[in-house]
């Protein structure tokens, strides 16, 4: 028989616990938080530096490392800040999986088109004989779908990551985006990422305090 000393749990408390855990798990895949803010910021820095400052090959190479720096900081933020209480895997819905698949396929199609155009223009031998900055352009283009598939699950991370990688490819090849339609689009996307990132981060701060309250309640019940 059920112990008479065990109090009946409150269904509302259970729902809240479920909801809070679900929100916490989002910071594994579908919420970027500060990493989206950093991605947007790096994208703006890359854009304006390449536009306004004359750059040598070494400086261009350093600037092209921005996507790598961003990915590392994104992983570090997830592990040591957003999920510092312990890692939790997000239960992704079928529509989230579909969206991710379509975005990856879209980037893969663009990537294939770029590499195919390179092969068409230079041939395999010509592509291999290109100077390394030009080769890096094709390498970054080829790597883009893999990076999108592995790391870029949230909309803001996707926008930030793709903008950073596109700029890295163009900058390392010796060129840059100008302040035309595409440039304005890049700036707008960077600002959008930062906006979403700040919103997700604020939601996380609220989540932490709500988690703290639930923990205290559970500790109270246990006592």
């Amino acid at each position, binding site marked *: *028989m*059920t*112990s008479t000393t*065990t*109090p*009946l*749990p409150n*269904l509302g408390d*259970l729902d809240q*616990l*479920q*909801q*809070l*855990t*679900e929100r*916490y*798990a989002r910071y594994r895949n579908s919420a970027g938080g500060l990493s989206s803010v950093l991605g947007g910021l790096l994208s703006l820095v890359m854009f304006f530096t390449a536009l306004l400052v004359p750059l040598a090959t070494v400086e261009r190479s350093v600037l092209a490392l921005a996507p790598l720096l961003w990915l590392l900081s994104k992983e570090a933020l997830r592990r040591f800040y957003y*999920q510092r*209480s*312990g*890692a*939790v*895997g*997000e*239960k*992704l819905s079928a529509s989230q999986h579909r969206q991710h698949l379509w975005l990856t396929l879209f980037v893969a199609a663009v990537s294939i088109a770029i590499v195919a155009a390179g092969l068409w223009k230079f041939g395999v031998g010509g592509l291999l004989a290109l100077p390394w900055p030009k080769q890096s352009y094709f390498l970054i283009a080829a790597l883009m779908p893999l990076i999108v598939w592995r790391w870029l699950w949230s909309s803001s991370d996707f926008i930030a990551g793709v903008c950073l990688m596109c700029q890295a490819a163009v900058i390392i090849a010796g060129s840059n985006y100008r302040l035309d339609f595409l440039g304005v689009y890049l700036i707008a996307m960077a600002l959008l990422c930062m906006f979403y990132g700040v919103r997700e981060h604020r939601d996380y701060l609220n989540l932490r305090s709500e*988690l703290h309250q*639930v*923990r*205290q309640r*559970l*500790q109270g*019940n*246990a006592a």
Partner: protein
Amino acid sequence: MSEQHNPNRQLIDNVLALDRLIHEPARLAILTVLSSVDWAEFSFLEDICALSKGNLSSHLSKLEAAGLLEIEKSFRGKRPLTRARLTDAGQQALQQYRIQLAKLLQSS
């Protein structure tokens, strides 16, 4: 009054119908947490359920033995890493428990 229509009898039946394994507050919290995610690390469960390592370990073993969750053990460097995941049976048992609990709360 027949036994079937006795409200006290119905209340007792509802109490008896509750799964005792799940009804324990710590285990209920663990299952509730796991029901909304794909998997969770031991340290997260310890933190959110406000349980000691030993307590959590003992509850996880009981739930695993009942087939309600799966435990995956590995290493990150030299640190042991334990992940828990709710099984389909665990998901169903939790749903069933919640239905029974809602009935009980209504009838009490």
